[in-house]
């Protein structure tokens, strides 16, 4: 599975204005919240670690940027949950 390519063409500049709460990563459809899929997406994660443990906190993968994000992060590519 290659998520990295999805980040290409992304605008380099984000809005300077903080978005409303509902426009943050927490409410974005690009944020992958399924912990089973996170384990499948990060090679070796389940060998000595877990996406179901405490250490991952609220961090999740953004499948658009192929990057770890937190619920309060944001970017100009926000897309609301369907």
């Amino acid at each position, binding site marked *: 599975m290659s998520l990295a390519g999805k980040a290409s063409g992304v*605008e380099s500049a984000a809005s300077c204005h903080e978005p409303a709460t509902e426009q943050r990563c927490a409410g974005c459809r690009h944020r992958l919240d399924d912990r089973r899929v996170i384990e499948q997406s990060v*090679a070796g994660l389940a060998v000595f670690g877990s996406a179901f443990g405490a250490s991952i906190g609220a961090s999740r993968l953004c499948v658009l940027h192929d990057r770890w994000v937190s619920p309060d992060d944001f970017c100009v590519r926000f897309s609301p949950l369907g």
Partner: protein
Amino acid sequence: MNDITRDLPQNVRPSITAAQSTTRGGLFHNEDWWSVWVGLLVVVVAWSLFASGGSIKWLATAPAKWTDVAQAGQDLLAHLPNYAALFVVFALLFGTALFVLKQRLVHFLPAFLILFAVSLLIFETAAWSQASRYNLEAPLLALLLGLLVSNLVALPEWFQVGLRVEFYIKVGIVLLGATLPFTLLVWAGPVAVGQATVVSLLTFFVIFFTGRALGLDRRFAAVLGVGGAVCGVSAAIAIAGAVRARREQASVAITLVVLWAIVMIFVLPFASHALGLSTGVAGAWIGTSEFADAAGIAAAQTYGDIARHAGGAIAGAPDAAVQNFTLMKVVGRDIWIGIWAFVLAWVATTRWDALEDGVQVKKVDAGEIWARFPKFVIGFLLASALITWLASAYSLADYRKVVTPALVAPISTLRTWVFTFCFLSIGLTTRLRSLSATGWKPFLAFTAGVVVNIIIGYAMSAHVFATYWDSLGHG
């Protein structure tokens, strides 16, 4: 399907409700808390039965030593009801936790049945009177068998649900707490923290600055550094999230942790033996220099087993290896992961370049420290405190005569079972072909940290604090 979701596995979308994604939490939301509940439930039930004149001995069964196969077969048949009951209890406890965590029970139960049956065979093999002559210690046997199977046979996807390495090791560590006096934790804590802090900081900075000198991105170097310095895969994920690293950077760090952790499972016990280290010193060294809890427990238990069969050639109590490993790794290193995450998140946000793809970090939240804290440590401490409080009513002689055989020893047996599930799961989840290609720069940076970590860890355990760790090992 649009261009964003088409790369994800079938039936999976990054689309859940906003409310779900941000507000979940609480005491049943992750494996750490569940390891606390499962471990403490076992301890409390064992304690209640003990207090009413009973014991969980019947349930906590393990194969007896045997010299010929017929004897082993008879022992196995005689204890089949015990093993069946043990499977049901473990399946119920783990199954409940995984069901709440939205794992598929229909996959977990058959997978766990296989894991249990193979673990029993491993136990039986390790109980052979000649097993130690061939280094057939249970942890190594489980690990090697798992590695062999997973790298030669394509295991079905449903079977993976039963291979919860981290969950099993955390439950085992909580149960381990019930066998350690709380006073020992209080007494050993400051030294463990001091030694771990020195080695962790040195290892982190060696990896970080070597990585930077080789041209690695700061975020990547930080993920590699903490992965090597603190608690392996868990640390790599925590820091990748905290500094908003890219997915492949976490994958590479995890691959390096996995490879080195597995190498060290074999190297550290045999190096300790070759260097003539006592079990207490070896446990502290493994705790300082292994990269993952599960790998370290495997290495420490292997050394304890080697000592048990060495006829007094290795100084210290066999159990001291796992005991001192846990003090060093869990108390000395693991509990700081939230602090590392918070500090590096702050540095990344305020000192490092903005993310090139436009992702904006709103704020650095001190809540990260608690959110990422390894909660199973709380269970470990509570289990220790509970048993210590109970034991305070007994003299030392009565404790050894009454409490140990009826309460502590059966809990130790259950812990050994859980650790065996873990070791077997490590092997079965380590598919070398599926790990990321690391590139030579990250490999060099991480390996520089490994070398420093091993040398400084050895010097501090076997020289600077040798008397101290030895004294704990004889206690």
